């Protein structure tokens, strides 16, 4: 087990370094001089331009630039925003908590709703409810989140006036109001994960139902629910772990759009603004932070997998 974990950790570190190369390379593929974009109209001043270039390390070869950038990053210096000329770290720290609160909420929603719907679909296989859930899951995957957001705002906020149209209230200020503001955005962020979670739960329950020990349990005369909850779910939920890891990526992806539409001052909204301003340092820092979260959660999922399923750590770690 120790060997398996060590191998996975080493792999994660390599991948993390590659992510920093990819995100650093964004500055390189950007047409035009980063220093000129940084200075804006002041770029006409040759001396200032040269100084800025040296300050941003743009006068050095790519590999040195990258090493310096990663070093600064690890020391907590994420560079300065091209547009606001403020430290990116401060801008991110202000917004990190909001995005993570939303993400956590959405994750809880997607796991509970997804697994429950998956169980419902598998136990009603090829019957009415299975088909309904299948169609809903397909819509959940196919519907653009910006459109579902508008539809929900139109129905729940503008038409029935049940929920606020947009905005964010910190939970420590007014908890009830905070929840009311978070219901729509979190649900919409969770939607694609709910859909994949439902499909995976359904498929793996159906797989496990074919196993011999389930047949044995059935022939012992055990009740359907006992078989489902004691014998089937325990094994069927293992593959769902993988989907859980992938969901975290899709939740963060979804937060970009949802924060923009619901006017929530989180990291996603910051990135959308950065895109419109071509503010690359913010986008780079955002990519590195999000990828770190995703790589760490994938690592945890893999290690958890190794713990619950010994076959995997033998196949992957000790070859």
């Amino acid at each position, binding site marked *: 087990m120790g060997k398996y974990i060590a191998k996975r950790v080493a792999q994660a570190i390599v*991948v993390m370094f590659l*992510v920093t190369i990819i995100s650093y390379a964004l500055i390189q593929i950007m047409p035009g001089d980063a220093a000129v974009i940084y200075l804006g109209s002041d770029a006409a001043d040759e001396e200032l331009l040269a100084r800025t270039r040296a300050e941003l390390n743009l006068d050095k070869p790519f590999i040195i630039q990258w090493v310096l950038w990663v070093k600064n990053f690890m020391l907590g210096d994420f560079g300065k925003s091209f547009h606001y000329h403020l430290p990116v770290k401060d801008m991110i720290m202000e917004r990190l908590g909001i995005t993570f609160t939303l993400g956590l909420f959405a994750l809880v929603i997607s796991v509970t709703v997804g697994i429950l719907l998956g169980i419902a679909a598998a136990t009603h296989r090829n019957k009415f409810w299975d088909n309904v859930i299948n169609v809903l899951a397909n819509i959940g995957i196919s519907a*653009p989140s*910006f459109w579902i957001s508008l*539809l929900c705002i139109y129905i729940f906020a503008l038409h029935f006036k049940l929920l606020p149209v947009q905005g964010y209230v910190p939970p420590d200020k007014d908890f009830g109001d905070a929840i009311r503001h978070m219901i729509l955005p979190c649900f919409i962020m969770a939607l694609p994960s709910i859909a994949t979670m439902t499909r995976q739960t359904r498929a793996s329950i159906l797989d496990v139902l074919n196993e011999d020990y389930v047949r044995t349990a059935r022939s012992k005369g055990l009740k359907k629910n006992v078989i489902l909850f004691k014998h089937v779910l325990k094994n069927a939920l293992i593959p769902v772990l993988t989907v859980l890891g992938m969901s975290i990526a899709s939740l963060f992806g979804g937060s970009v759009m949802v924060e923009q539409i619901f006017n929530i001052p989180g990291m996603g909204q910051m990135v*959308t603004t950065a895109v419109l301003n071509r503010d690359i340092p913010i986008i780079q820092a955002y990519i590195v932070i999000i990828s770190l979260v995703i790589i760490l959660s994938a690592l945890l999922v893999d290690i958890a997998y190794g713990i619950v399923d010994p076959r995997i750590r033998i196949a992957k770690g000790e070859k």
Partner: protein
Amino acid sequence: MKDKLFFSALFAKKIVIVCTVILGLFVLAAVFAPVLAPYDPAAISLKDKEVAPCLAHLLGTDSLGRDVLSRMLYGARISLSISLVSVLIGGISGMVLGTLAGYFGGVVDMVISRCADALISIPPIILTIAIGTALGQSTLNIMIAVGISSIPGNIRMMRAKVLSVKERDFVTAARVIGEDNKWIMLRHLIPNCISPLIISVAMSLGGAIMAEATLSFLGIGIQPPNPAWGTMVSDGMRYLETKPYLALIPGFAIMIIVLSFNIVGDALRDALDPRIRGNS
């Protein structure tokens, strides 16, 4: 006989037939947009602005008096062309890199596979946005940005398939008679490994349409006055309270097309996989 079996498996469910028809109409709309569109999609006419759907304007007009139906038809063109080119970019690069990784193994495999891992750990939409921003806004750059996010999945699929095929006897035979690596890959490996990749590329069309719509919605995709569906949704958003159809119609179109691509893609995969076909 074999084809007949395939088609009966493909169209076993009514929903697949419906979706295929929808996709057919979508392609026709895209190809014949100039013939079908009743108005010029970019023609601004302020005296006709915000007309509700009626006989002269079947889907109404937007805030600048442009005919929504005409813009939808031209928007279909943009969606279709961008998604086709971007999945081809993703498919071909994934095929080449996956074949190299699977065939050579060792360091080549490690470098390519770890890079694919790194690309996978960035959420696709964020990767697309970042590349789109860095490259700047042009149709080709959007195609590249959307295409790149599908590369890692394609690499993994192609690599796995090549790994299994390269151990087969005919590849060994080719190597024994002294054929060079390039020839073996082009002549023996790629033709025998490409079918799952083709299916996955077909299945990613829906995702590509969605990615393009998302970019356009955020204002970093297709630039006005070109009528991309995503741009139409974001333009219509401001009138959600008074003219909800302006945002809801193009959004609904995106959803239906993506849904159809996904359903037909799933059916195609199942119909080509004899294991699943036997069960259903």
